[in-house]
């Protein structure tokens, strides 16, 4: 299904602005903590017009979620709320919980991040929906059920009459989120609040859900507050954007103005630091130095001043107000906004981009990892006492690749594609269920003793996804870095001399050694994780989603660090990621996985420029671009449905059920797609670009 997203013309075209459905004035939220009150939201103002979408963007801790919770009145009881939240002339901030319950769900609809925990598991979705209707309206049981079925139909649940009887766990993630949206619009609210509605979903499903959300908004005519950290989502779906930093809105403008000519230095730097799918790889990522501030005891000046390249003395002493610079729509909280608006100052500062450290210096060395025909299955069992085997889950199916020193290979795919299983199999250093794994020239099946396995461990190390969980909270950074050395039998003096050098290597201050991980920021923790992996000078570093747990403004710094380390130490990286845009910036080759199979592989630029496999094409097109202009113009391939379970693999091509090419192909090809698994073939130009598809 190919569609160019239709877009309404904004009401600002007309002379008369309609009255806002939601007005937030000087909203303040603080939470008590041991260290003092955490000022999560510090004076937020905005108006939401009917039928319009306001995107609120910010990093974790910027106060965007606290704002959402305040609007829907679901702040924890310990929170202190100030200011006014006007909804149709009533002040929600002054209401008690009983009064709010009459507003919530009726005048305000909510879509939460995690659709699983947003639905009560013991009721069928039809019952959940009819309950939501009957709470606010006088409906008979039967009428409510009928309306529930209609709502499910509206949000695109196939066979709604039957599915209404199903329970939440019987739905897939994307379908569950559709149900949550149906719940949110059940009573035709005038305001919809969506808090990271697609963050928990796969990227090909994300596009579907955003379309449903837009449809739901059009049906109800509600104003939508879309809260997200993803600038691409905002670019494609919002009319106005408010950028939050340290509890305040720092820039508020129409989506085109904001992305076209960002005025606040933070916005400008954020846009410069975000990797995109379609920008050239040569465009370097310019990281924002430092970390987002803590919200306890903020300094007097602008909260962004310590990280700002164009900050002046005034910025460090007084906090700027949100004001409209002359000659530009939108409001900005910056002392130098006028200069920036006039074009006399570059908000990103004079930070010269780092020299492109890429393909030019790509020296390919020996093969450090060779995987051939790797197979991994898991039994599907039923019953608790006597476990019966009822099927086999083919997690990884005949996967093969090769990785050389100085090279980065990215395994890309959605959750359940088998990429993490592949990685774990490689790291296990044991004979695989099927196929061959060769690490640094040694076939792991030949390793006999535990000592031999430990010996090979020094060649291959891992950086885990979530640095908070990957570092033992009870050990200091020094001990964390000493651990791999001690495991290898290093003595005290060797450890003492190596740890400070490791900290230098990843750009951390040596004094960090005495801290516990809890006292570090997310970016610093990930640097510790990388340093730990490098402690024994491995040849191969396995990176399991190294950036997905980090804030956008910190990601660029880690990407640049990884690129530099690879160059300096001649490492090979095996990266697992779901985000193609991030991967593009530091991988040489990409292998796209779907249901345990590599469906396409090749050089990064080749894959991005000439994707062959329909799944790769869909994956590339599903990623929203942080540029409203192009985001609106380009053709998107929105895949139908979701990735099926690996326990019931189709006999033919694994992608056949969702494939747009298959539906258009002629009969003979269609039969082959159904019955015959496509072989991996190389592209005609003789490069290492390979894909597995009958229809291409």
């Amino acid at each position: 299904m190919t569609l160019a997203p239709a877009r309404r013309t904004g009401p600002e075209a007309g002379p008369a602005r309609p009255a806002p459905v939601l007005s937030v004035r000087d909203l303040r939220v603080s939470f008590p903590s041991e260290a003092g009150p955490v000022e999560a939201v510090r004076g937020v103002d905005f108006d939401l017009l009917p039928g319009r979408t306001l995107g609120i963007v910010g990093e974790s801790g910027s106060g965007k979620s606290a704002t959402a919770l305040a609007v829907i009145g679901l702040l924890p009881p310990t929170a202190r709320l100030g200011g006014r939240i006007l909804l149709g002339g009533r002040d929600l901030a002054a209401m008690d919980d009983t009064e709010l319950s009459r507003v919530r769900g009726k005048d305000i609809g909510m879509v939460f991040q995690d659709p699983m925990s947003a639905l009560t598991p013991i009721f069928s979705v039809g019952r959940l929906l009819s309950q939501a209707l009957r709470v606010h309206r006088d409906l008979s049981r039967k009428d409510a059920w009928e309306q529930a079925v209609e709502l499910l139909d509206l949000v695109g649940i196939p066979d709604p009459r039957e599915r209404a009887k199903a329970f939440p766990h019987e739905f897939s993630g994307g379908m569950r989120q559709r149900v949550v949206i149906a719940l949110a619009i059940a009573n035709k609210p005038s305001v919809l609040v969506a808090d990271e509605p697609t963050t928990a979903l796969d990227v090909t499903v994300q596009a579907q859900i955003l379309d449903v959300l837009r449809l739901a908004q059009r049906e109800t005519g509600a104003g939508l507050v879309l809260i997200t950290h993803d600038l691409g989502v905002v670019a494609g779906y919002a009319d106005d954007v408010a950028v939050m930093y340290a509890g305040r809105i720092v820039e508020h403008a129409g989506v085109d103005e904001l992305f076209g000519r960002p005025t606040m230095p933070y916005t400008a730097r954020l846009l410069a630091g975000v990797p995109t799918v379609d920008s050239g790889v040569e465009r370097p990522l310019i990281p924002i130095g430092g970390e987002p501030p803590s919200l306890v005891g903020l300094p007097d000046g602008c909260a962004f001043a310590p990280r700002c390249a164009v900050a002046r003395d005034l910025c460090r002493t007084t906090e700027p107000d949100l004001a409209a610079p002359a000659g530009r729509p939108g409001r900005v909280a910056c002392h130098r906004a006028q200069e920036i608006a006039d074009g006399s100052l570059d908000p990103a500062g004079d930070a010269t981009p780092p020299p492109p450290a890429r393909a030019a210096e790509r020296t390919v060395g020996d093969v450090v990892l060779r995987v051939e025909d790797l197979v991994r299955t898991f039994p599907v069992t039923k019953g608790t006492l006597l476990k019966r085997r009822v099927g086999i889950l083919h997690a990884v199916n005949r996967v093969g690749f090769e990785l050389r020193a100085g090279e980065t290979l990215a395994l890309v795919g959605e959750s359940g594609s088998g990429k993490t299983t592949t990685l774990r199999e490689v790291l296990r250093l044991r004979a695989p269920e099927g196929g061959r794994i060769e690490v640094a020239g040694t076939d792991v099946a030949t390793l006999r003793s535990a000592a031999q396995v430990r010996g090979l461990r020094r060649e291959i190390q891992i950086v885990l996804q979530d640095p908070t969980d990957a570092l033992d909270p009870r050990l200091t950074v020094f001990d964390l870095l000493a651990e791999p050395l001690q495991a290898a039998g290093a003595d005290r003096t060797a450890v003492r001399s190596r740890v400070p050098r490791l900290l230098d290597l990843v750009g951390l201050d040596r004094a960090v050694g005495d801290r516990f991980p809890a006292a570090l920021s997310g970016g610093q923790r990930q640097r510790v994780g990388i340093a730990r992996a490098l402690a024994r000078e491995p040849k191969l570093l396995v990176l399991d989603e190294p950036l997905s747990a980090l804030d956008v403004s910190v990601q660029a710094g880690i990407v640049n660090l990884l690129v530099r380390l690879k160059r300096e130490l001649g490492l090979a990286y095996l990266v697992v990621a779901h985000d193609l845009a991030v991967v593009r910036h530091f991988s040489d080759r990409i292998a796209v996985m779907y249901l345990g199979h590599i469906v396409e592989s090749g050089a990064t630029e080749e894959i991005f420029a000439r994707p062959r496999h329909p799944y790769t094409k869909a994956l590339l097109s599903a990623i929203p671009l942080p540029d409203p202009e192009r985001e609106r113009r380009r053709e998107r391939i929105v895949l139908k449905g979701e990735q099926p379970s690996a326990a019931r693999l189709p006999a033919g091509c694994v992608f056949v059920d969702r494939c747009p090419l298959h539906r258009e192909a002629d009969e003979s090809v269609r039969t082959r797609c159904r019955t015959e698994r496509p072989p991996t073939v190389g592209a005609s130009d003789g490069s290492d670009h390979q894909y597995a598809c009958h229809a291409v």
Partner: protein
Amino acid sequence: MGIPVSPDTTPDGLLATAPGPAAQRPPSGHDGRYLGRRRLYVRRFRRNRTAVAGVVILLLLVLFSAFGGLFTPYHFSDADFSALTQAPGAEHWFGTNQGGNDVYASAVHGLQRSLVIAVTVSVLTVAVSAVVGAGAAYLGGRVEKATLALIHFLLIVPSFLVLALVSHRLAGDWRVLILVLTVFGWMSTTRVVWSVSTSLRERDYVLAAEFMGVRPLRVVLRHIIPNLGSLLIVNLTLGVVSTVLSETALSFLGFGVQTPDVSLGTMLADGAGTITSAPWLFAFPAGLTVLLTVSMTFVGDGLRDALDPTSTTGAAGGRR
């Protein structure tokens, strides 16, 4: 949080020179020497005033039990037949009991016995249950199944019955009491430790340690058990109190402390009967037990806060 200062002008360190609050930046020019975890813990512990108070009380109790006997001419087994059930006075500071024994001398000796028994048993029980519970959870498979089967079997065996059967051979020695209390006391804590450890073994840092080539025993000792800290310490403090009390129950079966030997437990049991007629027989041992418990709790809480890096109390100095 400070800006990571990169020593070289590499891409990621590019903006390290961006203006930042100098005061917040960690001091550069670190000499590469680190305090080490133990000294950090001691430092955090010493910031906590109640914990230090707990240590002081505990030390005073130990000193009292060791040297308190020097201040009285009476021995705890001496019977003063001229002063039976006498209230506290100049001659007998804490009074005497029905048999004419000096309560002060008995309390000193009883405290000594109870301290040794209760603290040893409590530490042993917690240590055994931590290693066995966390080890079983981490190793999994057959080891885990066998350990759980043993625990569940021992939990349903009536321990007092077994003790009664073997008592005539082993009874009488307080060192046997320590062994017996440990052998019959480790299971329930182990069961709890095991169930908490099953969630810890799934954590990424355990996985990371495995991938670094850390040996299983070290993973258990270094990554799993320390993260059970609060649970173990609560068990340790509660264990001291419950051991003092269960010791009396076992004395009934002929185990442990037998007359003329005394412990806080036996003194409490004897004194409870005469609480209205001769309250001092109960009050003094009870007071000592309370002091022992309170000090153990203070120390335990202080240890928990000092060992828990997420606790702000440990870092801020014990003011909640």
